[in-house]
């Protein structure tokens, strides 16, 4: 799971700058820079008490260290934050936190203790960032700084983390990039080598990928489909990232012709996950919705395509493709994208310009000859 030092540095430099740039931080306590507690989108109602005041509330702090080799982070944030999704980021450079290092959890009651992930070394100089998610009117009690400790008493709730992320897997062009064969079925019966529709919303969902999208070009599928009544059928890919779950606004739909032998293969481009803003996010899972066709299906192959190998797969990208993105094209990329769109039909573009010029010429000539 861990990265090489150079790639880590690269990720920190490129990814986090984008993700965390623009934060409007408020420095609350003076003192040494490492001891500063910084808040964002939190307004202080009294010392160490805050109300959420924006879309991205978080607090950056240093924990109190009580044990030399701590096993737990003991926290007490007030009753308002029970059952609210929380995240602690623990890898930073100058308070720019790496999203690939985090613990996601909820707390049923405070005080509570979070078991620290094995292989991590937390000390009082470790900068931590606590993010409060999905709560617009919560308040935070931060009177008691979180404590690094090695024992907890029976009254403290032990937190079961929803997810612990330490580093990220980058796509390797040389290694196997076939997606794990353990797919979850919905409205489908059978196994990957033979499955059929059992209700009207058939789709398959991959296992957790947690993949850096820096080198990702797209996802390739090869299926054997049953005979359809329609000449063209649609497939839809949903992609879940660390920012959003499966949603129509983060999906791609393609339509391809039915083939005689039933073999259909296609690639959904996902290169925009690393090129458009926000970029270089984490691909968590993918979901493929298949058309409602009765009969037996087989998933022959599902592959994550590296950017350097994309040439082999370009012909698998159908002409009929719609992509709903939660990324946006900006700046030079927008101009480039516009030019690509125009140049996609260069024959028409040139003819169109010639037509405009011809009309202008005819008008000028007609005007002169009518004197």
């Amino acid at each position, binding site marked *: 799971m861990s990265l090489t030092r150079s790639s880590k540095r690269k990720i920190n430099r490129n990814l986090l700058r984008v993700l965390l740039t623009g934060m409007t931080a408020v420095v609350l306590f003076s003192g040494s820079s490492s001891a500063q507690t910084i808040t964002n989108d939190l307004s202080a109602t009294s010392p160490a008490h805050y109300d959420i005041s924006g879309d991205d509330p978080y607090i950056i702090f240093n924990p109190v260290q009580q044990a030399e080799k701590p096993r737990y982070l003991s926290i007490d944030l007030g009753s308002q934050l029970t059952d609210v999704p929380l995240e602690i980021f623990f890898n930073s450079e100058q308070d720019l936190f790496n999203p690939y290092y985090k613990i996601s959890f909820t707390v049923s009651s405070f005080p509570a203790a979070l078991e620290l992930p094995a292989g991590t070394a937390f000390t009082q100089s470790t900068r931590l960032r606590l993010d409060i998610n999905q709560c617009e009117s919560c308040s935070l009690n931060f009177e008691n700084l979180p404590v690094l400790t090695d024992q907890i008493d029976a009254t403290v709730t032990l937190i079961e983390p929803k997810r612990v992320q330490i580093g990220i897997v980058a796509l390797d062009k040389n290694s196997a990039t076939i997606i794990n064969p353990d797919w979850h079925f919905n409205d489908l019966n059978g196994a990957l080598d033979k499955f059929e529709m059992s209700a009207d919303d058939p789709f398959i969902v991959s296992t957790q990928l947690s993949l850096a999208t820096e080198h990702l070009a797209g996802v390739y599928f090869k299926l054997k489909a049953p005979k359809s009544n*329609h*000449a*063209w059928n*649609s497939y839809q890919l949903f992609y879940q990232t660390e920012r959003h779950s499966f949603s129509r606004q983060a999906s791609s*739909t393609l*339509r391809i*012709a039915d083939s005689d032998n039933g073999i259909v293969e296609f690639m959904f481009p996902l290169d925009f996950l690393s090129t458009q803003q926000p970029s270089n996010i984490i691909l968590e899972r993918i979901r493929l919705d298949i058309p409602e066709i009765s009969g037996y299906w087989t998933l022959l192959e599902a592959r994550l395509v590296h950017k350097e190998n994309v040439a082999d797969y370009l012909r698998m990208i159908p*002409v*009929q*493709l*719609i*992509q709903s993105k939660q990324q946006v*094209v900006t700046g030079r990329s927008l101009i480039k994208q*516009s030019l690509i*769109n*125009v140049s*996609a*039909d260069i024959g*028409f*573009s040139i003819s*169109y310009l010639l*037509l*405009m010029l011809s*009309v*202008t010429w*005819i*008008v000028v000539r*007609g*005007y002169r000859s*009518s*004197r």
Partner: protein
Amino acid sequence: MNNKQFLIVALGLGILLRLALMPFFAHVDLFSEARRVFYVLENDFLFDNSHRFVVFYIEVIFAWFSTLFIDVTEGLFYLSDPSQSVSDLVDYGFFLNDPNIYRHLFFFKLPYLVFDVATALLIWKFVDKPEHRKIALLLWLFNPLTLFSTYIFGRFEVISLFFLMACALQLKYDHVFRASALFAIALLCREINLLYIPFLLIALIDFKDHWFRNIIMLSCSAAIISAVYLLPNWLINLSGGNTQLFVDPTAAHATDTLRPLLSLGYYWFYPIVISLAVLAIYQWETGDRPKAERFVLSASVVLFIYFGFNVHSVHYAAWLVLFPILSIQYGKRVVLPFIALFGAWLILWLLKTDSGVFTLFLAAPLTTDFIGTGHFPSIFQQHIATDTFTLHQAIQLMRSIFLVVLGFFAYRVLKTEAK
């Protein structure tokens, strides 16, 4: 600049403006229409669809021509069930993302350009005084209603308007039967033209002539209109064609619409009928004026009445433009009302817009959100609306203002100008 030079320059600029808009904008209705056209071409169902017969076959002819330049074999216009020909946003998305989207849009709007320019030339011919015809031509070529509905929304209203224009021109020259036939063709383009029938028939009456000759002439005109209007259905039935090709059997039947219409289910129905009756009396009382003048003036006001109480879709306002422009021939001062109409129409539809009207999708070949700021209503809700002045109230206010503008326009059209 002499008259001819003015015509060349105005037409040239008008065409350039239209060409500049043609490839880049579209509403989903245009794609639905294109699917129907290519479905007919692909399956050789040339003698089936009778709905808006004239428009449809003009589009079919141009689409056939366009296949010399575009490839439609990649399933882009694939229609699995013709009775479900109205496109959903997924299919429309495929269309907009097609690499040849610009040429598709360009070629599909080509017949509209031809009929639009032809209408401009007929307007030039209809209006006699040089200074009047220049104003009329400029109003036609550069009015935002026609430009929007034809080249941005991408609908075929100009084809219907062309035949109405030709009808008015024939009336000007007292060619009553030709005018009747052209009117029937216009009916085969748009059902709304039915509203004009009583006013056309009253306009045909020559009050100085014997009543018996008038009855004969009116009967012949009515017969021509009926015959031309019913001919396509009759021919298609005769050839064993399917006139219900694109009709959705699950859609609400026409009688389901008629029932609330006659029982005040539609609040606008009786005000419109009463106002039209008043207009018919006015037209009868002004029987000493030329046929074309009576038809043009009453046809202008017919739509003012209709749109005063009933808004419908944004592009239908294009119907409003033609006859008021022709009223310039009769000395009517319509420039100011036109400017007021354009402004009221724009603000009303900015507020009353939906995802297909002013923002989202219009430049979808480049980006699905052309302006990048979302819909105007959402901006209004966010920055302008208060608890006491909501979006709904703003729309109602603008509808009232729109009605007032149409009233002002009707006054200018009906007002007898001092000699």
